[in-house]
């Protein structure tokens, strides 16, 4: 696989992930408007990962907004994961290792965030 072809595939994966996360945010804001939620005055909702599924099913704004925010934050990691797969397929082990290390740092952020 040529470098240009690899870049384009990674770019496509990033475009799909970015569009998906923006759609989730837009859905959350639409539900927020419909439900009369007031930003800045209503209490800030807490993130409960275990409750996310039921919040989404019940069309609660906080569920959709949290999913959108998480999707936005993880979109670059999708790009790195796509790069990792494509670099491995191209047998470019040095770049594969770098991609793996970048993903490890991103994962470590969650651990460190909870731990501190």
């Amino acid at each position, binding site marked *: 696989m040529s*470098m*240009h072809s*690899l*870049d*384009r595939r*990674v*770019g*496509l994966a*990033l*475009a799909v*992930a*970015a569009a998906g*996360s*923006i759609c989730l*945010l*837009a859905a*959350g*804001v639409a539900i*927020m*408007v419909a439900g009369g*939620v*007031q*930003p*800045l005055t*209503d209490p*800030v*909702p*807490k*993130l409960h990962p275990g409750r996310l599924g039921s919040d989404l099913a019940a069309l609660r*704004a*906080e569920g959709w*907004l*949290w999913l*959108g*925010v*998480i999707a*936005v*934050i*993880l*979109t*670059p*990691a999708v*790009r*790195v994961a796509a*790069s990792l797969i494509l670099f491995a397929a191209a047998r470019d082990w*040095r*770049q594969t290792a*770098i*991609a793996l*290390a*970048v993903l490890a*740092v*991103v994962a*470590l*952020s*969650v651990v*460190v*965030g*909870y731990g*501190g």
Partner: protein
Amino acid sequence: MTDLLLLVGCGSAAGALGALLGLGGGVLIVPLLTLGFDLPLREAIGVSLVCVIATSSASASVYLRRDIANLRLGMTLELFTAAAALAGGLIAFALPERVLGILFAGLLAYVAIVMVRGREPEADLDLPEASEAADPVPGADPSSFIDRLGGEGYRVRNLGWGVAGSMVAGLLSALLGIGGGVVKVPLMNQVMRVPLRVATATSNLMIGVTASSAGLIYLVRGEIDPYVAAPTALGVFAGAGVASRLAHRVDLKLLRTAFVVILAFTAIQMLARAVS
């Protein structure tokens, strides 16, 4: 409803100005949220990181598909920006907000000074012509790691300085909620001798992972309000998209001058808020 529209509107303005002036939205979003909506600084930084990731992901996908961004170089440097952002995220929670406010005021003053001086990167470092770009770089060794980081028509230099500068950019990103392009673009262009267009596109690519690393810390520590982050990010995304299509119709010189005044005024306000 009014607050929501105001957040979308301010986000759009920040996104549009950022796109027109080549700045990430973070430099504008943080002061807008703290001074305009009285949000605590750390919460504003968390929201800003979400906005920065949304816009950088969208533009980086275009740069990659158009073969402008250098994926290998970006991923190598972003390993260090992301690691530094992780450390910066922890430091941001250890520092008093007052210190963060003073740092942010300093950043705004620095950006204003850079814009006043109008320091443009050297023209001879821009992308070579297409015919020239297709030629192999003389002396490049395909088995050398640093030579493999180069692109068509250019070689990467001073990787060690690039790594060190990337760590500074990652630290600033996590501490202040900015993309860090203000450090990375001149670093790659002037020090690493990467053509300006490639440096800008590659910096954009790196911003996502850097802000993601810091953003996750802000997220799990409860410093991101989704009621504020979502409408602001949508506004920034829309504003940046519209502005990039209107850029050729805008008098950028006038806009730049007005923006310097706004930056200077905002820096003073941020400083006053931090010390009061």
